[in-house]
């Protein structure tokens, strides 16, 4: 796929994403309010019930809330646009055929759509971030620098690509099953829990559980970008985590390629 075509697809999807503008903004604002309110009240209740405990998993109450604020702002970019439902529908109604005759690869085309669907969210994220910066205080011990911000942006882009790559084998199952929506949701649950969306990984029991979590790819989704942004991670550890994530990404890309090559042979275009 040429860069020009890629950018055209991105632009088209971005315009599609804001076609229902009111819904787009209401949904974003309420999602952020609810997403912020829950951890705010939850962790305030936990810290209030245990006044002798100044930190949990190395985070104070304010540190914990800041963690969730960043997670809320980045989570949509990491997960991207849900592609599972789209492919099963395209296989079901035969519209996958037109992608197969396009002078580009389906996976790359869909990735461009994924990026385009996320672009308008950047404006929302910047707006929400400005609000939070105005009202929230950065707790002591947190070092947000230009370097950590740039590293975090790279990590988020990497996390989005990794999430997409891990979704490929799941999407490919649609060649055999009628609906893979439940598998995509399942992945979201697991990634959310083991990746740091529901809880910071430092809140998990220390020992083998935290050691295992560090070796899994899910860490790259939420915990790594936030820790990077807050300057809680050394440069060498960051590189190591990205390297491990890349290894998982290659593994899933290979599995995805295998599933797709087998599934492609089963596909029978109907209609059009």
């Amino acid at each position, binding site marked *: 796929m040429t860069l020009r075509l890629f950018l055209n697809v991105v632009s088209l999807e971005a315009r599609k994403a804001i076609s229902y503008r009111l819904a787009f903004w209401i*949904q974003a604002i309420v999602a952020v309010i609810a997403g912020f309110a*829950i951890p705010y*009240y939850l962790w305030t209740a936990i810290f209030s019930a245990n006044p002798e405990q100044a930190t949990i998993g190395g985070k104070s109450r304010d540190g914990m809330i800041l963690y969730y604020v960043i997670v809320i702002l980045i989570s949509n970019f990491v997960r991207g646009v849900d592609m599972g439902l789209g492919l099963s529908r395209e296989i079901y109604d035969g519209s996958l055929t037109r992608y197969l005759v396009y002078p580009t690869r389906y996976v790359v085309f869909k990735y461009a759509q994924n990026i385009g669907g996320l672009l308008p969210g950047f404006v929302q994220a910047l707006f929400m971030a400005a609000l939070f910066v105005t009202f929230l205080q950065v707790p002591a011990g947190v070092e947000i620098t230009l370097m950590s911000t740039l590293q975090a942006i790279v990590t988020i882009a990497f996390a989005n690509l990794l999430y997409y790559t891990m979704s490929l084998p799941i999407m490919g199952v649609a060649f055999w*099953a009628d609906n893979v929506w439940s598998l995509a949701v399942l992945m979201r649950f697991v990634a959310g829990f083991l990746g740091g969306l529901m809880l910071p990984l430092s*809140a998990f*029991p220390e020992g083998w559980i935290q050691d295992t979590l560090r070796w899994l790819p899910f860490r790259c989704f939420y915990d790594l970008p936030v820790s990077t942004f807050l300057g809680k991670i050394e440069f060498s550890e960051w590189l190591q985590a990205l390297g491990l994530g890349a290894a998982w990404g290659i593994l899933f890309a290979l599995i995805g390629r295998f599933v797709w090559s087998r599934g492609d042979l089963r596909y029978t275009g109907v209609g059009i």
Partner: protein
Amino acid sequence: MVRYLRLYAYFVRFSFSRALEFRTDFFFRVVMDAVFYAVHIAFWSVLYEHTDILGGWTRDKIYIFAASYFMIDALHMTIFSNNAWWLPIFINKGDLDYYLVRPVSPLFFLSFRDFAANSFLNLLLAAGLLIFMIARYPDPLGAMNIALYLVLLFCGFLIHYMVYMMFIIPAFWTHTDQGLRDLFFNIERLAEYPHRVYTGWARRIIVSVAPFALMTSYPCMLLFEGGSVSLFLHTAAVLAGTFGAMVFLWRLGLRSYASASS
């Protein structure tokens, strides 16, 4: 009433035969919900490693609360979820016409016609979990309390359905449920936590205008602490208010419905 029950039995029978044609999807749904339950239980377990009490409830209580939430979710997924998914599509395509001319309440027909047989197994799983959590609770809960808890839980399920419908029905005007459906699921997450975790205005809102506390938190409060007249009156008032609001919105929506055919 008998006619409606007989009709519902036909819906269920038809849904089961259709679900068994798509066995892989059936299996995936079961796995998905089993993982959903496991993730939630694990979440609470990790949280209770850092505290003994949350919103006034101990670990054993929160497990019953979580299982109650699974029940509401499983009931919703089994009975209403598919129907609510189709409603905006029917409105957009004009297919609503077919339901408006039938000799049964269109709201009943459109809310109940698609029984998700593939979620039914998860309902059994959620019920099993709830029974297990209640059975392992260290203190006696009392048969009367359990019976009243089940009544309130059923009311909570109805409130969940009606509030959800109020987010779907605006499709008559907006022609899409895209934003509103996501909006509901974002707000609904408030019901995943005990209402006493919230304070001030947030708590006032979730027991009144956005009555998510009444879905699982209030029934559990009754189970652990016993019921009171005010608790039942509060639930009855919210139930009646939500029902009235949903029916009003539905009628208003039908008046705006222009059909898409001819």
